[in-house]
C-alpha cells in the first residue's frame, strides 16, 4: 500500500517557489533556456527522481516526490514572478 505523504511535497513546492521567484528566464541573455530546455529538464528530473527512489520518506512513492515538487516549484515561481521583481542587485 503506497501512502503518499503530501506535507514535504507541499513544503518543497513552496520552498522552490520562493527561490524560483529570483530566476529571471526572460533576460535577453545567451543561455538559451527555452521551452525545449524546460521539457528536457523535466524529463531529466523525472529520471533523476526515479534514480533517487524513495527519498527521504521511505514508505512513499517509488520516486523522490520532494525533488520533483521542488523542480515544479522552481519552474512555477520563475514563470509567475521571475524577472518581474525589481531588485537593486
Amino acid at each position, binding site marked *: 500500500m503506497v501512502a503518499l505523504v503530501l506535507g514535504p511535497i507541499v513544503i518543497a513546492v513552496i520552498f522552490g517557489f520562493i527561490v524560483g521567484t*529570483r530566476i529571471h528566464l526572460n533576460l535577453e541573455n545567451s543561455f538559451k533556456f527555452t521551452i525545449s530546455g524546460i521539457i528536457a*529538464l523535466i524529463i531529466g528530473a523525472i529520471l533523476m527522481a526515479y534514480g533517487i527512489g524513495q527519498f527521504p520518506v521511505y514508505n512513499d512513492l517509488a520516486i523522490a516526490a520532494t*525533488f520533483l515538487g521542488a523542480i515544479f516549484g522552481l519552474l512555477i515561481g520563475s514563470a509567475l514572478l521571475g524577472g518581474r521583481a525589481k531588485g537593486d542587485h
Partner: protein
Amino acid sequence: MAEGKKSPNWNKDDSSPILKIMTLPIAFIMIALGIMTILGGHITPGGGFQGGAMIAGGIIFCVIVYGVDDTPLKLSHRFISTLESLVALAYVLLGLAGLALTGSFLYNIGGNLYGAVPQAIAAIFSYPDVTHAGIVPYLNIAVGLKVLVGLSAIVIAFSKFKKLAEEE
C-alpha cells in the same frame, strides 16, 4: 589586466557556450537536491546547513558562469536582507514558543515527547510527515534559507568587489 599579457579569449570576457547552456539546468537540479536535503534533514544525513549550501552552490555556479550582472538567478539586496531577518526571527520565535509553553528554550512542542504541552498546541506545530518530527524540520527550513542567502551574499559581494577593483 596588464597590457601585452596574453590570455585566452574564452576566459577574457565570456564563458563558453557549452557552460552557458548547461549551467542553468544544472543549477535547477542542484537547488532541487538542496531543497530535498533540507526537507529530509530530520531522518537522513544532511539538513538545513548542507541543503542551504547546495542551493547556494547553484546560485554561485550561475554567478561564476554568467557574471554577477547577467546571471539569471538574481538575489537583490532587499530579498537577501528580508529573508535573512525573517528566518532568524522564525527560529527565535520557535525557540521562544517552547520557552513560553514549557520553560525550555527550543522544546520540541510539535513532537511533544514529554507531553509538556496540550495536544491541541502540539498539533499546530506538528510536521505533516510519517515521522511527526515536530519543529525540527521547520528549524531545518529556517537554517537552510539563512545559509542559502548568507553564502550567496558572500559570493555576490566578492564578485562585485572584484568588478570594482578591475574598473579602477
